[in-house]
């Protein structure tokens, strides 16, 4: 049975999605620059499931500054800004449990499908939500 499976495997496409390119580029950042300039095409990532918990999206206008999200956050991601009564999130610490989304009484927080969050600097603007 194994031999049959192995043989058929020779003629089937790989199960792995070749994201971001069919062959690994020398520099991923260089490749992404080329994609933006329209010189290369991106192999799209596998779509995330509908209930995916990615980077938390924050609606600053709706936020009432109740600090409930700060109380439930297991990773201490959320910082309170006392003057404005708003919050700032440090995504580099986030564990993506989305408990803050469940806790928010005014739906100011939502789990977005955004998952490409790797960065060399944990304080980069892409990893701070406010």
């Amino acid at each position, binding site marked *: *049975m*194994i031999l049959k*499976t*192995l043989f058929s495997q020779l003629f089937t496409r790989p*199960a792995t999605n070749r994201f971001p390119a069919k062959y690994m580029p020398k520099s991923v950042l260089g490749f992404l620059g080329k994609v933006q300039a329209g010189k290369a095409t991106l192999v799209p990532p596998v779509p995330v*499931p*509908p*209930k*995916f*918990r990615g980077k938390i999206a924050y609606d600053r206008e709706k936020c009432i500054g109740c600090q*409930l999200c700060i*109380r*439930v*956050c*297991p*990773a201490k991601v959320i910082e309170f800004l006392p003057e404005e009564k708003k919050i700032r999130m440090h995504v580099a610490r986030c*564990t*993506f*449990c*989305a*408990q803050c989304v*469940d*806790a928010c*009484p005014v739906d100011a927080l939502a*789990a977005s499908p955004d998952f490409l969050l790797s960065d060399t600097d944990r304080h980069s603007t892409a990893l701070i939500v406010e």
Partner: protein
Amino acid sequence: MPDQVYEIPIGPIHPALKEPIRFTFKVEGERIRGVDIRPGFAHRGIEYMGMKRNLIQVLYLSERICGICSISHPITLTLAVERAAGIEVPPRAQYLRVIFAELERVHSHLLWAGVAAHELGFDTLLHLTWKVREKVLDLLEELSGNRIDYAIPIYGGVRRDITPEQVPQVEAMIRYYRGLLDELLDAFLRDPSVEARTRGVGVLAPEEADSLCAVGPTARASGLAKDVRQDRPYLVYGDLGVKAITPREWGLEPRGDVYDKAVVRLLEVGQSLDLIERCLVEMPEGEITSFPKIPALLAYLKKADGEGLGWHEAPRGEVIHYIRLEAGVEEPVVWKVKAPTYSNLMSWVPMFVDQEIADIPIIAASIDPCMCCMDRVHMVDASSEAMVQKEELLRLSRAKTERICRGGGPA
């Protein structure tokens, strides 16, 4: 000199071990005559961290005790807290918890089967098993949102429901594995080379399994019909009527070797599929949590006073969480975790004795050890072992530099 006994240390970090633990084998030629086990290298002080956080934060901490048991630990913790605080769980939530727990068992046992095949040098089978394991991980991702840390149980219920549109996907997964299970059983259990490498290797006699308090598939492979879901039913397992699986279901008298452990785990994949199917049919409509509002839950837990014990049959065996709550305090006063590997640790000793050195990896893997689940304490014997911390070492180094600068010799 064939009667000379040598000591071989293996670990704490070693390619044959997936996680840190240290074995010291006494070997005579190729034969193992004795073994000393020293755990504690994956101790992270999680229980202490939990006692500094409120219960909702502890829930996600417990999920991260172990990546593979990321349903077992939160379910056990919620059961303990619900007992301590007297929270009722709606029936639908109980069924949903069982479905997720059984999905975890399917992926954990398939993971083990792949690891076992790899330890035997049968990498084709490793890749095949892990390829089919993707199906259940995809389903878990679809149902919960993420692939490994599911964030599903919460005190008083679960966080996410299985919608009617998702039910066909679960049924498709069950059909997929039903069609594959016979092939997998064939590839593992009727393969002459697998049988030759696992039959009579790492034998744990039933009396030893009993006296050493082995749990889970390790105990069941020795013929003990021991399963928390059957012996102390919780959630809806009592209604589902789970029967402990021993190699007798495969038509063999249990011998307690690595082969029997593979039999038990692979048959349990089928059992889990049956349980999920029954849950889908019997699951009533209704609420999925008794506390839809988080502030109400936090306020209720703060008032709660008492102690509770939660138990669950994790893929590796019985896991227990003990919790003590005090009124007016948000943090648990005591949180104790007993993972299945802790109970199975001692059964390694009789399994290793009189085996060959080449069998060490597969015997070590056969209990499906999980050090990060188990290591709740690290013992240091200060009388026989000296441990120098980084600061102390730095101080010694600086003192030496000073001494040499002043023209002094070694201390």
